[in-house]
């Protein structure tokens, strides 16, 4: 109790400091050298699978506090120590606490561990030593031109366990301890505004986080049932399945460092970058260790290794502001990635799977062509343009085999045509296409006094699987502190049952597993 009282007092002191330290707000000056900003947010998500029953699946409460301390200005640290050519330095700390109260509210989630988090997400020091700048610490680094589908933006893994990729990526990237240095070059040869940037992650490896327990609302269980495969059929015999998963993630050793560099410049009117990143796959591959399999009376004991292959990502980005004919900013991003894990069907020829572990790494190419355009649609808005942003993605396996497999599914165990109760097996009938496509479209504008009503429309569509995703969102800036937002997320498909690779309507729009949802957001910002 005393500890709680202390925490409440500390929170009160902090809030009091924020509100009364300065007449300013947004970014609040605590002292001349210390700034704070932050917010608290309550997000309620109601899933309405087929627009019938509403099912509260998330009540996430977030508090985020961000501080910046200017401890070195004008080549003087703490107001007294001269630092020579080191002109400026700041310390930034971003902390976040999340508590999802839905696990305490709903009886149906009894037995599940509630989701919460409380951590210093980012902490880094920025140093300016012209022409060199350095950011050291736990941070996010984003390269590339794409929105919401990744190609070059692979330095930080994603936490997809809360709400898949439906949160702002700033909030679901997993910050890593790293050094990011930039040397400004300026004009060199035909290039302007050029710089070289290097990133080094000495030993901090994290994989993408995906919730696999199907009882959680945003668990990933492929195109099958929300169950765990507990059985295996060998011949016509049903056995229990006991799988030992051995996570072979890279150890925190220097030799497991990751890093890369890019050169960015303007050539003519084209803003471009050449990129290289040497890392690990954030999505694990699965090596089936069949040599460790044992079959006893009624159980198959087997083991799989989760492996994170080394990856090489080579990329080119470019953008061009075409001001005369299309009045659009044209964006391009293309990458070739070597080392992407892929599953191979059991029994594939030795030429395809020489180690017979149902695992290989492949190379993939991604091309993204995008267009941003402020566009007048005067019948809908006479005062303000719509910001329209569209992207076309093409992903291609450079080395492809028809023996490759996509995402496995869990289905009921069936023996002799009869379904066995409470017994489930894993199957994989999903063969990825060599060429994969997805098209995105987003439009947003603002209405009302001071543009405080902000509607947004988003569409993602996979032309091969015909899976799609829509978001309709309306944000209202009620005051300088309060923001309301309501969203409707729709997963659907136009036809067929082919499974696509993008986890949209083909995956999350299936019958009773459809994940349509309405999101209510309330944010109080400082």
């Amino acid at each position, binding site marked *: 109790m005393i500890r709680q009282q202390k925490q409440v007092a500390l929170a009160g002191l902090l809030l009091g400091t924020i509100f009364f330290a*300065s*007449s*300013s*707000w*947004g*970014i609040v*000056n605590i002292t*001349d050298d210390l700034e704070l*900003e*932050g*917010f608290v947010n309550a997000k309620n998500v109601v899933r309405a699978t087929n627009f019938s029953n509403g099912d509260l699946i998330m009540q996430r409460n977030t508090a985020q506090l*961000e501080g910046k301390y200017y401890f070195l200005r004008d080549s003087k640290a703490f107001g007294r120590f001269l630092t020579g050519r080191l002109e400026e330095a700041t310390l*930034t700390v971003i902390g976040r606490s999340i508590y999802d109260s839905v696990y305490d509210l709903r009886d149906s989630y009894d037995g599940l561990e509630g989701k919460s988090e409380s951590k210093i997400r*980012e902490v880094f020091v*920025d140093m*300016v030593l012209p022409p060199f*700048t350095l950011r050291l610490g736990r941070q*996010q680094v*984003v*390269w590339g031109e794409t*929105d919401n589908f990744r190609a070059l933006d692979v330095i930080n893994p994603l936490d997809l366990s809360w709400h898949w990729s439906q949160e702002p990526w*700033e909030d679901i990237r997993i910050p890593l301890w790293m050094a*990011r240095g*930039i040397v*400004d070059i*300026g*004009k060199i040869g035909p290039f302007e*505004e050029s*710089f070289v*940037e290097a990133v080094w992650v000495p030993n901090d490896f994290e994989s993408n986080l995906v919730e696999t327990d199907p009882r959680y609302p945003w668990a990933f269980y492929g195109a099958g049932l929300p169950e765990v495969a507990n059985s295996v059929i060998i011949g016509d015999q049903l056995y229990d399945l006991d799988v030992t998963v051995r996570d072979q993630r890279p150890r925190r050793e220097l030799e497991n460092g990751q890093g890369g560099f890019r050169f960015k410049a*303007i050539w003519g*009117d084209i*803003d471009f970058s050449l990129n290289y990143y040497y890392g690990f796959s954030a999505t694990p591959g699965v090596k089936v260790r069949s040599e460790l399999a044992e079959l006893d009376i009624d159980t198959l004991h087997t083991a799989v290794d989760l492996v994170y292959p080394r990856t090489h990502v080579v990329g080119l980005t470019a953008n*061009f*502001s075409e*001001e005369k004919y299309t*009045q659009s*900013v044209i964006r391009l991003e293309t990458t070739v990635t070597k080392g992407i894990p892929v599953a191979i069907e059991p029994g594939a020829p030795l030429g395809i799977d020489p180690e017979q572990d149902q695992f290989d790494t492949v190379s993939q190419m991604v091309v993204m062509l995008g267009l*941003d*355009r*402020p566009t*007048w649609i005067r019948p809908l808005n006479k*005062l*303000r*343009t719509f910001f329209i942003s569209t992207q076309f993605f093409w992903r291609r396996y450079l080395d492809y085999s028809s023996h490759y497999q996509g995402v496995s599914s869990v289905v009921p165990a069936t023996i002799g045509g009869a379904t066995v109760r409470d017994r489930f097996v894993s199957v994989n009938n999903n063969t990825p296409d060599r060429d994969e496509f997805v098209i995105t479209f987003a439009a947003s504008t*603002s*209405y*009302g*006094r*001071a*543009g*405080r*009503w902000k509607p947004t429309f988003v569409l993602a569509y996979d032309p091969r699987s015909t899976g799609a995703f829509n978001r309709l969102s309306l944000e209202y*800036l009620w005051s*300088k*502190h309060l923001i*309301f937002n309501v969203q409707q997320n729709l997963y659907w498909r136009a036809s067929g049952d082919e499974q696509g690779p993008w986890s949209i309507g083909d995956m999350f729009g299936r019958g009773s597993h459809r994940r349509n949802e309405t999101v209510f957001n309330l*944010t109080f*910002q*400082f």
Partner: protein
Amino acid sequence: MGKSKSEVIWGRRCHPFFNGSILVIVLSQCFSAPSQASSDQSYETLRQWISADSPNANELTPGQHLTEKDREKYLEQLIPQSAWEYYIFAGMDMEIGATGHYPAPQNWNQKSATDYQLDEQGVLVGFTGGKFPFPEIKPDDPEAAQKATWNMLWRPGTDNYDMPMVTWLRSENGQLDRQMEFVGVSATYARGDHSLVPGYEEVKSKSIMEFRSPRDMAGTKSMTITYVDHYKENSGWMYMPAQRKPRRTLSSERTGESMGMDMIKEDALGFSGKVYENNWTYLGKRSVLATVNVRDNPEFGGPHLWVPHKARWEVRESHVVLIEPKADNHPYSYRIVFIDAETYWTHWMFAFDREDDRLLRMNQHFLKYSESYATEVAQQAPFVKQDYSKNLGYNVFLHLGETDINAKKPHATLTHCYVKKRNFSAARAKQFYSLRNMTSGRR
């Protein structure tokens, strides 16, 4: 101490969620019919006002305070008619200052290109700054309008500052809808016979602007490069913390309101568009009241808290320039700009709706002469303290803010700027105004 009017109004507002259907409010806000602009806000009326004399202008004495009682004798003669509705109000108080002489900086007009000209589109070619390109504007010159405008676009004091800003977005009756804080930093590169950064001779200026509040915009920053070649569009990037990367922005769309503010990109400083996209007419000179050499960032008054109140005004002779956009889909049929005949800063701008030739938007600017800080204490921005005594010696005007009104919403955006002049070294400018600086931000 009592609450300010804005605070009271914040507190009084009714919450639409408690007050009826959201849908009704959305529709009413989105599609409400424009309020009836008063009949004296037409383009023709302003043209007639410009043509009329202002016989009593010389009768004003320094220190005199004008109130609503002076409406006919002085105010209606010296305030452009389209603005009467906002600037003449019960309880108003305009302090009249002596009409000053404000010399340009000492090195102005000394080291500049001489081989420059207007081309057939009225575009200034071959000029690289450092002086007024056309020191003398002759009324009978068929290119007088363009020349006055080019002097305005190349005037001294436009850049080279650290400028914290606060902007209020207000509806009628002073209702505060949104408030923003941001900082602009800017440097003139083209300085006549040299560039601030050698090798960057094609660059006219570079600027970076970063938002501090509200929190949903904090950390958002933009960098803009303008070029000596007027035909070349600006280059722009925007860094948004939520994206953690810069995004290229389009420059040629200049006619939409953004960030909820009541001006379009072309309205900045009266006219910030492309000369060749417009037809030009010089309407002569006219004396107007202008907030020149204000003592401080003026408080706002009037029925809607939209206009300077208790500020210092001067009678200034201004070039009056008529600008007619060539594009049929441009929102304006006419734009009239009042540009100071000595300093070439814009005092007033009026833009008329293409649909009915009535006032659509206007702006009015608050200026202060840098040397005034020798005797007057500067007002500090609410979020940063600066040493304004460093403004002494520049001999330029500082832009202390403006009022932008959309007459048809009706709504206004009011801005206070806190300008501290800053001379970047070549090395510092090269580092600061670089694309590298846009790859990361506060977070």
